[in-house]
């Protein structure tokens, strides 16, 4: 897709987003959302502790069925696009772990009914690090990782 096309498309989609309506916070049934936040996993200082904190085990089986898309060299460590996708069956959760971050767990995604095993987001990387995708499927944990170089310093301000 050329840049011009993308920009013309953007004009259209910007108009379309006016369709979304702002609804008050009472729309969803109240539940103890904060209680469900896995504090120990997010505070953990190692990959193993983070994964254990989430899933009760750090036993990861390497899998080439997981596709993780991250840049080789991050243009900016504050905004690193990441996407994880797999064609495995029975995926319940996907987690993204940045090995060298002070707290390696960046996020975890619980798939509900009908959800496809795909997630994309943008993360912060503190330093050159392996970014590891953990997939929980059929009760087991699988993973794959890719190194992302983070360079700091220059004139960019």
């Amino acid at each position: 897709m050329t840049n011009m096309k993308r920009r013309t498309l953007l004009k259209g989609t910007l108009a379309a987003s006016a369709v979304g309506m702002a609804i008050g916070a009472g729309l969803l049934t109240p539940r103890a959302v904060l209680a469900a936040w896995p504090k120990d996993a997010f505070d953990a200082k190692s990959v193993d502790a983070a994964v254990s904190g989430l899933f009760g085990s750090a036993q990861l089986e390497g899998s080439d069925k997981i596709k993780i898309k991250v840049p080789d060299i991050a243009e900016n460590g504050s905004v690193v696009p990441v996407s994880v996708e797999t064609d495995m069956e029975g995926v319940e959760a996907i987690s993204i772990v940045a090995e060298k971050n002070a707290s390696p767990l960046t996020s975890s995604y619980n798939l509900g009914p009908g959800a496809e095993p795909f997630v994309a987001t943008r993360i912060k990387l503190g330093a050159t690090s392996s970014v590891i995708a953990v997939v929980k499927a059929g009760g087991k944990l699988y993973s794959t990782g890719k190194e992302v170089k983070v360079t700091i310093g220059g004139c960019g301000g």
Partner: protein
Amino acid sequence: MKKLLSIVAALGIAASLPYTANAGPEQDLQDFRAYFKKRFPQVPFNEFGNGVYAIDAESRAQWEAIEDFPPYEPSIENGKKLFETPFKNGKTYASCFPNGGIGIRQDYPKFDAASGQVVTLEYLINECRAANSEELLPLKGGPIADLVSYMAYTSRGNKMNIVVPNDPRALAAYERGKQHFYAKRGQLNMACADCHVYNAGNYVRADLLSPALGHVTHFPVYRSNSGSMVNLQHRYAGCNEQVRAKAYPLQSEEYRALEYFHSYMSNGIEVNGPGSRK
């Protein structure tokens, strides 16, 4: 950095300067374009509007991922809202601009013969506010960047069309801007041209230096660095400070002159702002 530059100069790269003294804007523009065409022969002319993303595939891929849902969208939306909200006296910004302010970004900065001043969109926004008894906006970030983002967005696809009329005051402002661009300044003793002309495409530590051709088309930019919108003169101040020179006040005559020259050099390249950068 100085050593690097003297090595570069020794290699004769600086030999083909993109300007001749006192040649006039049209000749300067031809020379400027010729220089960048020679330096980056693979880059189609209009693509220079994408800066480093026109010359580096790796960062381009990340930029495209981010453009999938651009972080500057809230700025455009807020800018539109601000633009359309009437002042206390009932008037709107539309009354202060040609074509109601829509699709005009490519014409600015403009030389205003009546006042003898080079006027930018930010300058006119505040002039409009003053004329309608509204408080002036701070000249960087926040609402003014959002307004300019919106105005840029409505102008996407229009080719930059800065006019330097045959008026000695306009030519003087143009020359002043050109002077600023090529003059060394600050403790690091560097000119805008040192990075963005002679070293365009090279790295200064982790940063890839963008070519000055097409520089202005994508401003204001959402910077991942700060998570906020940065307009052009805000960046000028940042760059001045980074070579440890004292920044000029935003919208001062000096920066308006610089923006005049700098924008003229992007003539013919399509407006594609607002943009997102690292």
